[in-house]
């Protein structure tokens, strides 16, 4: 199960591959505090591969933007080192890092035309007039804004300004581009369109992208890998599929998609599985981390991984639960039940047989051992 992750420590999960040639960015033991007391980022280890689209995902205040700013050079780590392309960058000012950056509010120069905005980094680099014009044109074609050279940013829609900001971050052909919640100001439809657009551009150019967002769907849709931040730490770095299917921490389990989290105590251990007592029931679960009898654990069960039991013995865990509330949502029924004193949500697809579920009555549901993951509770995290 854990083959993709040879180390048990999620924060150093990429440690085994960190020394390979395709590593482009490396955070090594990076710590950040503004007042010397409150840590913003704690002991952070992270590698970004060349050509990879890596997203830093987390709630606001979890340290993801601070990490991006340290990578860009606008903030300095309090401890630890950041390497770009094998070179320590602590002493390199932002303007010498050759990193493209897309800001949350785009940060287009309002007094310059689109063409002048794009020409700016090229003029700084001393390109001649013809080369500047050619590259500006190419960058605008890449973001599908040909012919917009002479407009001012305030004459453009939000989505167009976004495209200009992306073009400006790419026009000087940096190998690394950072994006700080670039789609935050756009409406939902435009945001989804731009997700595909940014992904297309990134694949076309093969550029390495580090992307910051608090929107887990956005992270899932765009990224090769996602680093999930919580309270200044990385909880897990993995592909979207692995994060969803094999969360290693309760925070990841609840932040990515829906999950029922149940607190319980290990009653018996058998290889990779264990029996966990939750209130008055015992649940058989897969152990993400090693546990002994008597350990407190958190169980995570996804609502859509539970099923109606039509024939007893289909699942390793089967219970008859009282239906406390239910909602019909078209393609599925969302049923609120109770297990061992915890609220427990069950998602029942709109297929034959689901009509038999009635509020106030019992429903016979079950799930497999592998769909029930036993993890260390969050309190233990700081003690390792």
């Amino acid at each position: 199960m854990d083959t993709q992750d040879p180390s048990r420590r999620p924060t150093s999960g990429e440690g085994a591959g960190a020394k390979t040639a395709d590593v482009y960015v490396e955070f090594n033991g990076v710590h950040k505090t503004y007042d010397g007391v409150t840590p913003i980022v704690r002991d952070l280890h992270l590698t970004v591969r060349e050509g990879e689209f890596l997203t830093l995902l987390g709630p606001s205040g979890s340290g993801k933007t601070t990490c991006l700013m340290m990578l860009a050079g606008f903030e300095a780590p309090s401890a630890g080192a950041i390497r770009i392309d094998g070179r320590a960058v602590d002493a390199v000012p932002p303007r010498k890092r050759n990193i493209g950056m897309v800001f949350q509010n785009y940060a287009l120069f309002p007094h310059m035309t689109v063409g002048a905005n794009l020409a700016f980094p090229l003029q700084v680099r001393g390109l001649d007039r013809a080369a500047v014009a050619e590259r500006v044109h190419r960058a605008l074609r890449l973001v599908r804004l040909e012919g917009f050279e002479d407009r001012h940013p305030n004459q453009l829609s939000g989505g167009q300004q976004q495209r200009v900001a992306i073009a400006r971050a790419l026009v000087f052909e940096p190998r690394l581009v950072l994006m700080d919640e670039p789609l935050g100001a756009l409406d939902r439809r435009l945001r989804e369109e731009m997700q595909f657009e940014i992904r297309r551009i990134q694949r076309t150019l093969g550029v390495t992208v580090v992307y910051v967002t608090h929107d887990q769907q956005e992270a899932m849709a765009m990224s090769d890998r996602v680093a999930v931040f919580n309270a200044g730490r990385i909880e897990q770095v993995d592909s979207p599929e692995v994060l969803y299917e094999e969360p290693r921490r309760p925070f990841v389990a609840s932040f990515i998609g829906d999950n029922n989290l149940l607190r319980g105590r290990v009653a018996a251990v058998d290889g990779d599985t264990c029996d966990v007592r939750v209130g008055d029931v015992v649940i058989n679960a897969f152990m993400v981390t090693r546990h002994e009898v008597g350990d407190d654990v958190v169980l995570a069960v996804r609502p859509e991984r539970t099923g109606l039991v039509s024939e007893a013995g289909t699942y390793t865990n089967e219970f008859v639960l009282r239906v406390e509330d239910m909602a019909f949502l078209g393609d599925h029924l969302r049923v609120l039940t109770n297990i061992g004193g915890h609220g427990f949500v069950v998602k029942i697809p709109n297929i034959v047989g689901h009509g038999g579920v009635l509020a106030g009555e019992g429903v016979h549901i079950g799930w497999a051992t592998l769909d029930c993951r036993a993890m260390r509770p969050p309190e233990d995290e700081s003690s390792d």
Partner: protein
Amino acid sequence: MLTASAGAPVMTSARHLGPGHYAHVVFCVLVFVFLIAPILVVVPLSFNAQPYFTFTEGMLRLDPDAYSLRWYTMVATSDAWLRALANSFLIGGSATALATALGTLAALGLSNPAMPARPLVMGLLISPMVTPVVISAAGMFFFYSTLGLTQTYLGLILAHAALGTPFVVITVTATLTGFDNNLLRAAASLGAGPWRSFRRVQLPIIAPGVASGALFAFATSFDEVVTVLFMGGLEQRTIPREMWAGIREQISPAILAVATLLIIFAVALMVTVEWLRRRSQRERG
């Protein structure tokens, strides 16, 4: 909904017709008259054909012969007035350049959160604006005389620069509060050094604030008489100093002609400031 929308205009028009409203309008007009009449009355008087400061009978009858341009001619041909004009522009221009450069730098520094003792420094820089001019002028006189700067152009330029700097600090600081510092980060990420970021990104955006600060600094120097009385020698007589002499020594309506020219100049300055303000508003969209 229909009644509400129909009712609203009726309410407002009723308010327009109230006696309180007329009293308010009359009061406002009186305020304007009080403020502007003493200034405007100078304009027709400056065309007086007689060497008086009052309206002659001919002027009141609108007799063309009662009006003349003789005082304007006199100003335009007087060495003293022309030298005063040159001095005013030389001292005002130099003091403005100095005040604008220093005031803008100060405002940039004061807008940096990392700058220590910001309120104190701000207070010191603003102090020439709140200190009575007589006091700063007397202080400067004693201080500058030990340095040998009294009765020199440099001395007056420095003194006027000190008086004009607060205006630049205030207008530029106000403009900087609306400035998006991410633009400087963007410029840095695109490879621009601090000087290029300032000149190509920040300065163009805060330019209206810098320009209106400069205009205020210039106006301060241009109509300043107290410091000039203390520090200026015969060589450094400016227009206000010459007007002061004109009133005290040779009561001549020539100063009315100069006053009229200054009013026109002041209006032009104000129009420029307003135009700059609107332009910057438009650019920020």
